[in-house]
């Protein structure tokens, strides 16, 4: 096992640096196209932007999260769940303030003995002082047996 349960539990409360993110039209266009949908009207951002915008806007990255949580390589990380709240629709060209961190870690063992850590991170997008979106994502980090 490359990372201990104690090391993982110590990650709870870890805060990302925080920052700002502006979703540009080209980025939203490509994102929407990737889903196979027609482009949205009125500068509306496709709701799945709530995956990467919180991560990148809070000044972390998928790579950093993998490293922080001791990912064991390709195939060792999986998605568990998302909880995404849209208090206002997201729009292109708005400078969102983004902040958050790791909110929960739980080491679990499956029925067939596979050990994994369920890691949740919670991040908010704000426009001024107003929270406009909130995400909690849970990823599974599977651990190799010793």
């Amino acid at each position: 096992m490359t990372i201990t349960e104690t090391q993982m539990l110590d990650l709870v409360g870890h805060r990302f640096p925080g920052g700002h993110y502006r979703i540009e039209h080209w980025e939203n266009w490509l994102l929407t196209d990737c889903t196979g949908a027609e482009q949205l009207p009125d500068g509306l951002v496709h709701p799945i932007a709530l995956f990467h915008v919180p991560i990148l806007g809070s000044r972390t990255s998928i790579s950093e999260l993998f490293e922080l949580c001791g990912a064991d390589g390709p195939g060792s990380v999986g998605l568990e769940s998302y909880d995404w709240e849209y208090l206002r629709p997201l729009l292109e060209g708005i400078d969102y303030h983004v902040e958050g961190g790791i909110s929960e870690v739980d080491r679990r063992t499956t029925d067939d003995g596979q050990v994994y850590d369920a890691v949740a991170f919670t991040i908010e997008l704000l426009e001024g002082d107003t929270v406009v979106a909130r995400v909690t994502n849970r990823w599974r980090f599977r651990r190799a047996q010793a």
Partner: protein
Amino acid sequence: MNVEVGDDLPPWTMPSVDPARMKTMAAILRDPYSVHWDREANARLGLPGRVINQGPLNLGYIVNMLHAWAGAGSVRRLTVSFGRPVLDGECVTAGGRVDSIDEGEGERRAHCRIWLELDGEVVVSGTAVVAVSSASSSATIHS
């Protein structure tokens, strides 16, 4: 828009998950995880010749189904869990059903079960809260 508890949402199908779109998505996400674009690396994981679709894209098909039903900008909350991965070339269909309707923040909101199916197997499932009209309009409510 008439919405009733028990309504089935019109399904939305992605006939063939496109590996080229996974590459674009990986770039947008700054996702270095090679399972989405490197077939040779995936061969070592037991997926020879295949790449794995990104979870947000799987959820995106569900969002597209909700938009087609209730309009862009209507999604208020998505809570989902993920089952088995979706691979390039597979056909998936998003669906949903209205479980309840209430009012909040000056609008009528449908609380829906949502899912993504692949060959009859649910690979993403959860719930969505969707604005179906302003509270002053006349959505039909049966509880």
